[in-house]
């Protein structure tokens, strides 16, 4: 079984503003504004919450099942990977 670990590459910085969270990839001179749900999830992830806990909180916040919340979270992580504010590596898990 394989695990996917999402992590921030070097050079990613962020700040919380009134309108949301501004995330910067310094190496690519790009900035992204995360608002609403995205902003909440980024904040939780920055607090080192585990994946099951994130799914639970997202499920509560959105009023959706854990399964739907899990899918939503994975879509979000993939979207952030595509814009290079996250990277992913796969590890084998025994």
């Amino acid at each position, binding site marked *: 079984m394989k695990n996917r670990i*999402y992590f*921030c590459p070097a050079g990613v910085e962020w700040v919380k503003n009134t309108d949301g969270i501004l995330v*910067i990839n*310094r190496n690519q001179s790009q900035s992204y504004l995360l608002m609403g749900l995205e902003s909440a999830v980024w904040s939780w992830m920055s607090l080192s919450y585990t994946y099951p806990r994130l799914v639970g909180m997202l499920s509560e916040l959105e009023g959706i099942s854990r399964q739907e919340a899990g899918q939503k979270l994975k879509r979000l992580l993939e979207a952030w990977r595509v814009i290079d504010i996250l990277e992913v590596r796969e590890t084998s898990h025994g």
Partner: protein
Amino acid sequence: MANLVISARCNMACPYCFASEYLDGQSGNIPGHASPYIDLETFEDRLDFLDRSNIDEIRLIGGEPSLHPRFPEIIQRAVKRGKRILIFTHGLLTESALTSLEVLPPERVTVLVNMNASRSGDEPSQKEETHRRKTLLRLGGRVQLGFTIFQPDFELDFLIPLMVETGCQKSVRLGIAQPSLNGRNRYLHPKQYISVGRRLADWAERAGRLGIWMGFDCGFVRCMFSESDLERLNKAGAGIAYRCNPILDIDLKDKALHCFPLGDKFQTDLKLTLTAGELRAILEDKAKPYRRAGIYKECTICSYKQNGECMGGCLAAAIRRFQLAKININI
């Protein structure tokens, strides 16, 4: 425009100095550089650079520029190239430095004297004040006074009699002490800006009645002034600006810096083929993603920032609000 570092050394210990971290001004040591002073050959290269960039004004900074052992010769070389000279100094000038400047007509040189530079790191001593006063008397209208605000209860009244007695320009250039990226220097916290704004308006009103002009350096923000404060500043004819568009700093190691507070973060090589404008564009591009933020979390929704009236304060102070992302999630 471009500021040229000609001396990394400084013999003051201003608590708010944001250049000392980059230059190690007390020792004058620069890693990878033999001397804390620019050599004359390199200085000629810098003059070529200014010519190539169509810049008529040479702006000498440090450290303390007047500590350069060949300061008079540097001034002479700049004059020979037809440059107008602007010097940023603590004002405790040696006799040879004073002599080299007082022979120049006032329209060819401005000596911007930082009036609250001190060796003790606190208030200037009596001896320092006396020395500075002598500089003002000798250089008269060539001098513009400068003051760096690093605490909310600052006092500017002492500048007024000095202007009257010494014949220096009746204008003050005010700067807000900004943090270096690690924040080791003393600086004015954005939470203190509003009380500073009120104090400035009070002073501008008094000074304005005496024909004294007050101008703002970079880092001021629109929201530090109430409408009535702003009205008083305008009435006094103050040079109000809410900008953060620092002038290129060229250091002794052939690096062009965005500014001293951000020197380690945004710098580029001083390539001989590029002009100051092109170097500035490279550095602005590096800093661009951060420009969306300001010194307050509210800056991103502020109409003054959105319409370009205010840039959201010093970029170094804004960048200090950022944190490195440390996300690691195992699915």
